[in-house]
């Protein structure tokens, strides 16, 4: 999957699951703030990325993926590793 296509898909599934406007999801935006995630719904975000894109964000890696831009890079790099 091309990166642009991947970004569009990530935005789409996150917006649908967490009920936010796609336009609110920008590369620099904070994931937790934008999606209004607490410690429980953060688990759902990780599970969604894993089930939709086959990429597992391990517990130690979650803290590194703060923005959507970081998430795009993380998923793209893992998929293409």
């Amino acid at each position, binding site marked *: 999957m091309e990166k642009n296509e991947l970004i569009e898909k990530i935005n789409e599934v996150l917006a649908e*699951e*967490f*009920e936010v406007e796609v336009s609110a999801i920008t590369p620099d935006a904070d994931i937790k703030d934008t999606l*209004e995630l*607490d410690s*429980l*719904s953060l*688990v*759902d975000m*990780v*599970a969604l990325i*894993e*089930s939709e894109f086959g990429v*597992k964000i391990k517990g130690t890696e979650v803290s590194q993926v703060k923005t959507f831009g970081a998430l795009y890079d993380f998923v793209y790099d893992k998929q293409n590793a």
Partner: protein
Amino acid sequence: MQKRVVITGMGIYSCLGKTLDEVRDSLYHGKSGIIFDPVRKEMGFRSALTAYLEVPDLKKELSRSQRVYMPEQAKYAYCATIDALRNAGIDQDYLNTHDVGLLYGNDSSTVPNVKAVDTMREKKDTTLVGSGAIFQSMNSTVTMNLGCIFKLKGINLTVSGACASGSHAIGLGALLIQNGLQEMVVCGGAQEVNPWSIGSFDGISAFSIRENEPTKASRPFDRDRDGLVPGGGAATVIIESYESAIRRGAPILAEILSYGFSSNGDHISSPNVEGPSKSLMMAIRRAGIDVSEIGYINAHATSTHVGDTNEAKAIYNVIGDRRIEVTSTKSQTGHEMWMAGASEVIYSMLMMKNDFIAANLNFENPDEDSAKLLIPDKCIEKHFDTFLSNSFGFGGTNSTLIIRNM
């Protein structure tokens, strides 16, 4: 001195309707909520009969973070409770500033468990189960969800007493209020409606197989009954002390005169006569009334052979030859199980408030025991001011409530 306990609000989400008016009309007109569900047949069910109701879409009412922890029966319970609170004239401000309790009957939450186990087996990764599963799958799912959504601050626990859960919840709530431990308790019962939750029940041949006539399948007390039909939904009553209701200027609908209970101490699935009789007699004794004051009996009768026979015997033991109408609203709804004790209080309340007794549908021929009772097979117009409602469950748990019009 014990406090008087009154009912000031009711709400229901059932196969007979989503509002009190709809349910009242369904009861009056003898509408059946039972259908044939072809999916169950494909799943290998012996009986594909079930009550039908839709799972409400609460996207507009609740946030994702509230909905994600709710299995279907918690959604039914939310709908019933928001209506009951409105009916009782209670707003969020009142709930925020008073220690309102919550006792709700529920005794299963199957689908979230099935989904979680399927995911763990297939993926071997517990993260993929998601955050909602644990809260959806616990027996106390209804009370934990409602307690958080409505920000309740009194007692908060689930009553699991099999098919008497909803009735015990109301009875226990009444005891707390009588003894001054709570001023108000949100009480009710909820029951999931899906094939997974009752497949094992189907497996012990408990269900009617009159599949060619779904609306005739649930026939409590009828000679040719062949088993129950599963149903569900949720029902909520707001109960509070008489003083609290007066202070609030609340609409007082009825008074809970008493709660009787017993355990059979016998077989796990077959009820006996002694246990239910004891529950009935305890309720009558505690109500301080004469049996002749009871104007209507809402029976537990589920349309099983042994259950209905033994309940008919128990009722006859207590009322003798007095001509008191006895019906089972399960002839219209099927067996609403964990919800039934609460919903049947509401069905009986709607009849009492509107001067009728709904037909015991499909009561075409009595058997030896039901012949001794006055069981109307058609809706009758009748004013009554006191009713008794029975609920019995697996393991031999029995609950009886006596409620008087106000």
